[in-house]
């Protein structure tokens, strides 16, 4: 599909708006509707597969909005926050106030994140790698995502006061979860997202309980608040880019659909020893492999889940300890653990 490939290359280097148009145009060529020359507004029926996801992803980055966001887990746990987001071309500024749990306000300006913890008067700063609805979608590439997920339009619903298209994202194997996405009809903005297991059971639902699209959010005001750290002690999460191969790690066999994204050497703010973090994604889901030396004390292997996030800890190689975390089925984490190989 040469048209789609060319469009993908453009996506990396061309401003987002243009990229979406190119993709839509490419899709038009593939779908054999030669009369289509204005790709900006496409009838729902013509919009095929993964293009829905790209559209939703772009809308999440470029729209300006405010709302209340609630995450509900099948375990019964809930968490919620108030969100303000200002999108301006490729710039994004956002603020998120936790409405539950430890009081916490997080500001993000593109890749820079500052989290204020008023109770302990600590401001944590860190880099955020990617943003948007599916942060690794464009790096992995829509073509690869289409290989592992089937995307189909599954009707229309009204959610949080918006008319939305319902999209069913069906995994093509058991190494990943499925999703159901409610995308606002006009913009594609994702109002609700469910994560589903192999039996179609809902593991987690993340949704806006109220949403004001195109709210008057002032980016400059948010940036001012973000920069004001008076009275707070700043903790910087240090990390440096690394290469898994140079660190001596590789996967014997790749885990289908998952591509390596980034690798970091972590120096935590606390006094704990750092480890290597190797990040994989299949475009929708992300897995982190944390590897550190085993140490002298015996450790016990463990496996646990927190909502939709699976985790495990186990020994790898002779002298290393792995903690794998990801929004994927436990067997996928086990596949990573088995495939991980020490090459030095």
């Amino acid at each position, binding site marked *: 599909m040469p048209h789609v490939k060319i469009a993908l290359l453009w996506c990396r280097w061309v401003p987002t708006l243009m990229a979406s148009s190119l993709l839509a145009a490419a899709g038009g060529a593939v779908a054999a509707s030669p009369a289509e020359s204005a790709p900006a507004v496409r009838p729902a029926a013509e919009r095929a597969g993964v293009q829905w996801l790209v559209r939703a992803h772009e809308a*999440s980055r470029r729209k300006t909005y405010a709302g209340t*966001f*609630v*995450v*509900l*887990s*099948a375990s019964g*746990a*809930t*968490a*919620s*926050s108030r*969100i303000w*987001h200002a999108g301006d071309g490729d710039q994004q500024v*956002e603020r*998120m106030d*936790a*409405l*539950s749990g*430890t009081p916490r306000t997080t500001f993000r300006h593109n890749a820079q994140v500052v989290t204020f913890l008023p109770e*302990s008067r600590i401001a944590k700063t*860190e880099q*955020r*790698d990617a943003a*948007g*609805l599916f*942060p690794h979608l464009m790096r992995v590439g829509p073509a690869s995502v289409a290989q592992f997920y089937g995307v189909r339009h*599954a*009707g*229309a*619903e009204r*959610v*949080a006061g918006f008319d939305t298209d319902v999209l069913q994202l069906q995994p093509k194997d058991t190494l990943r979860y499925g999703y159901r996405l409610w995308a606002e009809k006009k913009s594609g903005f*994702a109002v*609700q*997202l469910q994560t589903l297991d192999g039996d179609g*059971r*809902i593991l*987690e*639902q*993340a*949704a806006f*309980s109220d949403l004001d699209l195109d709210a008057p959010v002032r980016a400059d005001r948010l940036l001012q608040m973000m920069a004001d750290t008076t009275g707070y002690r700043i903790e910087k*999460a240090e*990390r440096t880019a690394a290469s898994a191969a140079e660190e001596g790690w590789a996967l014997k066999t790749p885990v289908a659909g998952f591509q390596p994204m*980034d690798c970091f050497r972590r120096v935590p703010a606390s006094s*704990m020893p750092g480890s290597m973090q190797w990040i994989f994604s299949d475009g929708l889901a*992300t897995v*982190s492999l*944390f590897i550190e030396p085993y140490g002298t004390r015996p450790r*016990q292997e*463990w*496996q646990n*889940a*927190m*909502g939709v*996030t699976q*985790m495990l800890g186990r020994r790898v190689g002779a002298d290393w300890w792995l*903690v794998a975390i990801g*929004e994927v089925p436990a067997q996928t984490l086990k596949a990573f653990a088995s495939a991980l190989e020490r090459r030095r």
Partner: protein
Amino acid sequence: MTTIDSSSDAVSALADGALHGPALVATLDRLARDGQAQAQWHAYHLIGDVLRSEDLARSTASSDFMDKLQARLAQEEIVRPVVSAAATVVPADLAVRPAANGDSFRWKMAAGFASLAAVAAIGWNTLAMTDAGADGTTGAVQARADAQPPVMLRNAQLDELLAAHNQAVGGAALQSQAGYVRSASFETPQPAPSLQPQR
């Protein structure tokens, strides 16, 4: 162990804001006069402040201690409620038994519950009002009424890794915000309001 007497009960109830009417008046009188009651009053508030304070209530358990605790707990037999295969907890004992820092975690959960329940109720109600979609399924998260979800024991190290994982998951809407929201603020799992998927 000191014997529990009704007067110290009353001071405790007063600290919780649970006294009204004549009992309230009588206890306030006693507090004004009785040095021992005042000492008790002071102690309750000090305890509360410590528990509420992240800095003070943080456990100083070394990872050494945690490993030994995990090993010990694994040896003990615990009656566990049935958990579905999708969320195998090994070792589940950790989740059921409180650890040294369990109290501060649970205190925070208790404190946050009321506001959570309100937000959850709003969230549920809003979502429940959606029309049935083409598949006949709507936004109903089907809580497993049978399984009592284990309290997740999170030590500081795991929190650090979860935070790093969420850095990777990303920043803006929905899925990555869910990551933010998931890792730091899951409270005591409560039985979700009954909301059956509309079929």
